[in-house]
């Protein structure tokens, strides 16, 4: 019911281009909560395997040193040398085996954790969403809600499975290597750090450039999508007016713009890798040169290790370290973008999870009941076909009221937004067996009244009583269970026709569903579908006409067999002949019960007991058809066709 909703309010805001540590902390907290044992294990695995992969250079260096020593000494005895070399290699192999085991464990666990986390998040989001009030769905674009489940969850996947582990890994390696480098030489380490500073500067510049254009690209994509959507929807109109050429021209302009933004965004992103890598190369060369210089001059060294002078034995491994160091810095810089995006995604997911759920303070519940001859109502455990309101009072007593479907509104005021009253002083009395109709222009408040009866929204002032009970006291799920609603925009679910009808009453047998379909006048066309009642519906029943969907929706409400039924433009797309059939069926079903009808087609409401004419949120005329015609007011003008609705 988008038509009555206030302007949609976009919460959550645009993704911020900064690290949000609060969000990161919350993601970590959830990870720990879901996997209190596995997460530490994985962390240990990552750190260990990272350490192991940082250490080998020490061993290779030792081996190389041994070889150099042998070569220099001219002693070519392998059998002697191997007693020195093989143990070292042996340790290396042992380390590798451990590392491999850890890597296997870590990657397998990570796959498990990532998907588990996403699965749990999805369920959490969905469960939370089910508890949100209708207002949330009315005020948020459906596309935006969907993107929480698709785009944002996807960024989380990247964050958890890739970015966080590789950040931890690269961070460990960088720290280890840094420590080893400091062990060898503080001077040379300083040179390397200077280079790394340069890398950060460059990656910030390029990263910032690419982020700027990625955001622009995102906007261009939205624009293109909007344009294409509009044109594809209106494709038939374009054909009828032979506007193809004009449309192509307009599209080209938008298309070129998107192309330019994409190009720039990707150019920056692509360049980051090679640029950082080559800065690393230059840094390496500088280190080689400076190292050579220090060696030549036999400069005194400053280190936290036992190296008072520059010596070949550590200069060479140091050079290898440089490569490893810059390589890992590169890894970190490549992840920054993903992390920022992941944080933005997580933030948005959290806004959905943090939405205030619908509050329900109702304590009056609906129970199966047995009604004695003298009218006393008793609760029953069995399904009796009769229902009663079970009403606990503050003094501890219980009273039962038979469910009849008597709905009364007293002086109700209401506004979707504060200060904007949509309904003024609306009073409606609907007794069991009555058919009450609302007529009025779009925005007059017809649908709003029904939104209040089932408490999709709460009234601002006045009273609504259901069988004499204030509806605020009734538990919402029970209140809604006792009201059957058929809306103009029919929403069917993926599944068979039978399943869709049964949605109204999950315990209904096939026979009961078919009976409801017959009452709704839907049986005729359903049996003509390829698989009859077992025909699969998908995509909101796209393979049916709007009128047929409405018939199924009516059947769905009919099978619930509610004491009160609200038909909100429920037959608007059904031709007048079929509508007459539906009406006969519904009248039979609802005999002795309450029906609210909203329609702008007057033939739909003509036979109602009371017709309320609404204008700008006020009831301006009420009475049956005969009376309203005699009054010669708005209804009369509508009926005689001199006045246009909508």
């Amino acid at each position, binding site marked *: 019911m988008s038509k009555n909703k206030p302007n949609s309010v976009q919460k959550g805001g645009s993704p911020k281009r900064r690290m949000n540590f609060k969000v990161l902390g919350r993601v970590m907290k959830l990870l720990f909560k879901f996997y209190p044992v596995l997460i530490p294990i994985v962390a240990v695995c990552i750190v260990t395997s990272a350490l192991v992969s940082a250490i080998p250079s020490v061993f290779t260096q030792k081996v190389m040193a041994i070889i150099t020593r042998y070569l220099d000494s001219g002693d070519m005895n392998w059998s002697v040398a191997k007693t020195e070399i093989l143990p070292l290699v042996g340790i290396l192999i042992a380390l590798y085996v451990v590392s491999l085991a850890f890597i*296997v464990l870590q990657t397998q666990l990570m796959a498990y954790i990532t998907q588990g986390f996403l699965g749990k998040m999805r369920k959490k989001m969905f469960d939370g969403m089910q508890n949100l009030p209708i207002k949330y769905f009315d005020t948020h674009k*459906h596309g935006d809600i*969907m993107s929480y489940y698709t785009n944002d969850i996807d960024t989380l996947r990247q964050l958890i499975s890739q970015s966080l582990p590789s950040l931890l890994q690269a961070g460990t390696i960088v720290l280890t290597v840094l420590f080893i480098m400091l062990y060898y030489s503080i001077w040379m380490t300083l040179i390397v750090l200077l280079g790394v500073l340069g890398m950060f500067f460059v990656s910030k510049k390029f990263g910032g450039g690419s982020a700027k254009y990625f955001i622009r690209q995102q906007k261009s994509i939205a624009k293109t999508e909007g344009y294409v959507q509009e044109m*594809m929807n209106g494709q038939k109109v374009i054909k009828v*007016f032979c506007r193809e050429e004009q449309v192509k021209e307009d599209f080209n302009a938008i298309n070129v713009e998107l192309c330019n933004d994409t190009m720039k965004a990707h150019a920056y992103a692509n360049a980051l890798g090679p640029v950082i890598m080559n800065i690393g*190369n230059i840094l390496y060369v500088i280190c080689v040169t400076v190292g050579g210089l220090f060696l030549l001059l036999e400069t005194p060294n400053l280190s936290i290790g036992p190296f008072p002078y520059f010596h070949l034995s550590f200069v060479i491994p140091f050079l290898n370290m440089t490569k490893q160091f810059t390589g890992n810095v590169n890894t970190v810089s490549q992840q920054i973008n993903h992390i920022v995006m992941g944080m933005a995604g997580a933030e948005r997911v959290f806004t959905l999870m943090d939405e205030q759920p619908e509050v329900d303070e109702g304590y009056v519940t609906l129970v199966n009941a047995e009604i004695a001859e003298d009218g006393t109502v008793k609760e029953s455990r069995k399904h009796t076909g009769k229902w009663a309101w079970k009403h606990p009072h503050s003094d501890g007593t219980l009273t039962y009221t038979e469910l009849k479907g008597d709905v009364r509104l007293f002086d109700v005021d209401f506004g979707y937004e504060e200060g904007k009253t949509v309904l003024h002083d609306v009073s409606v009395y609907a007794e069991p067996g009555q058919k009450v109709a609302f007529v009025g222009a779009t925005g007059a408040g017809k649908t709003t009244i029904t939104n209040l009866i089932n408490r999709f929204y709460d009234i601002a002032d006045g009273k609504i009583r259901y069988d004499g009970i204030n509806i605020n006291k009734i538990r919402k799920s029970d209140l809604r269970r006792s009201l059957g609603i058929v809306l103009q925009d029919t929403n069917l679910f993926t599944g068979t026709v039978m399943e869709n009808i049964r949605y109204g009453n999950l315990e209904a047998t096939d026979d009961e569903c078919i009976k409801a379909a017959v009452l709704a006048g839907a049986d005729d066309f359903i049996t003509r579908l390829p698989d009859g009642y077992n025909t699969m519906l998908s995509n909101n029943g796209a393979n049916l006409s709007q009128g047929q969907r409405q018939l199924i929706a009516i059947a769905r409400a009919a099978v619930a067999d509610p004491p009160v039924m609200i038909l909100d433009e429920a037959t608007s797309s059904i031709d007048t002949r079929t509508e007459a059939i539906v009406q006969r069926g519904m009248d039979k079903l609802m005999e002795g019960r309450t029906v609210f009808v909203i329609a702008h087609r007057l033939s739909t409401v003509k036979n109602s007991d009371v017709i309320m004419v609404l204008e700008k949120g006020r009831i301006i005329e009420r009475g049956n058809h005969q009376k309203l015609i005699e009054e010669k007011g708005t209804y009369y003008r509508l009926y005689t066709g001199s006045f246009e609705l909508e």
Partner: protein
Amino acid sequence: MLKRLFGCVREYKKYAVYTLIFMVVEVIIDCLLPFIAAKVINNLQSEAGVDMGYIIKIGLILILMALISLAMGALAAMTAAKASAGFAKNLRHDIFENVQTYSFENIDKFSSASLVTRMTTDVANVQMSFMMLIRIAVRAPLMLIFSIVMAFIMGGWLASSFVILIPILAGGLLLIAKNAMPAFRRVFKKYDKLNESIEENVRAARVVKGFSREEYEKKKFGKAADEIQNDFTKAERIVALNSPIMQFCVYFNMIFVMIVGSMLAIKSGGTTINVGEMSAMLTYGMQILMNLMMLSMIYVMLTMSMESMKRIYEVLSEKTVLDNPKDPEYEVKDGSIEFKDVSFKYSAKAKKYALSDIDVKIESGMTVGIIGGTGSSKSSLVQLIPRLYDVTEGSVKVGGIDVRKYDIEALRSSVAMVLQKNLLFSGTINENLRWGNPNATDEEIREACRLAQADDFVMSFPDGYETKIEQGGTNVSGGQKQRLCIARALLKKPKILILDDSTSAVDTKTDALIRAGFKEYIPETTKIIIAQRIASVSDADLIIVMDNGKIADMGNHEKLLKTSDIYREVYEQQTNGGEDDE
């Protein structure tokens, strides 16, 4: 298919080629770097002591090389982005152009949502793969070959480890990809379904709440989400084997070089291999394995985007079923229409005919009403007149000539049709009306609006004809929209005007005024009016009653009241219908 798609690169081919060239240069430098760097290292270690002049000279060369490589990398980054973004642009352009040639039958085939996805998500997928392809597809194999060659030159015997490692890694990666891909494809399909069901729930929030089915939906979703989670985990765990296999190969190479290398070095006294060469072997080994990994990534990415390519190709290869005839007629003589033995079905495969045995002759200037229930094929009938669909059998003649002999544009500009599902586009009212005739003067536009009873309400807007219409025309009422659509059609000055249930939201009085205007101001134009309301057609020269794809009855109002049961029934329903039930 690939040929057709990659043909769309067109003018951006040169950027793709530049990318390849830059990449080749970059690869050569990248491969030479460790080679030359090894020289410096050896010099550092040489017994003769460090030759600083030599080191600085080589160092400068190395820096120069790094700078060139940096420049090449940056240039390639730019050209690759240009080529792929351009490719995507051309793809979107071609899809859009082709869709514009579609006939109604083609349009019915694709939902608008699926066309939008194809033009955005699918194109973006192909674009990313293409960029990967030109950046890495040359680079990786070149690096691979170069590294292998260098490894053998430098390491000789030592390089034999790659003979074992390459098949292990390549085989392992391929095996993973082969197993993971179908698993992923299955999961993604399920994932799409899951998202569809979320969307269904968001859209149907009122229904779910109305029936208090929140817990039921939660349970249903929980089950589906668990299933997806399990499937995803399975697929991801296969892919997670990638990194251990890779790591294993790196480790294996390391140990092999350590053991065999040191043995060779010591036994030969450093003649077959020296320390510098040993460390170079490690570097090359790393490069070889990394590039194998890259190749497997490309393989995965390409196969993954294959699905997108298929979907794009479907749209691109869809040929319009309505071709312009050779030597077409450009002149539509008058507004007479003749249906002769017409049968029609929407697709060749359909079993049921939407229309059958239609024979009607309509003279120029007549007003014809068509009435019938939902699904009686009223719309199908009139859509044959401007050749939105072609008849299956028989023929439709306009102005005495078969519609298939006309130039399509000429025919459609003489036959104005207001569709049942009519649409206004975002833009001003003026812009929307000029769809009917781009050269219409302001006075002509007002005149058309007066005739369609739209002028009054348009002038009541603060911005009059410059009022902006929002997407989907949400800021005008249904009746106003319909009247604007009629005015838009009138601006074509058509010989035949078809209104397909186009005044359903207009009140009966205005409806009558519109029809009276037609009679007075465009008497030569043939007017065909489909309506639900008897009042809209009762004064027509000829009324056609449709039922189940056939003409049930034909005649004027008085005659039909006497002869047609359906007509009489609808008439009674609408004039005093409700009272029957009371």
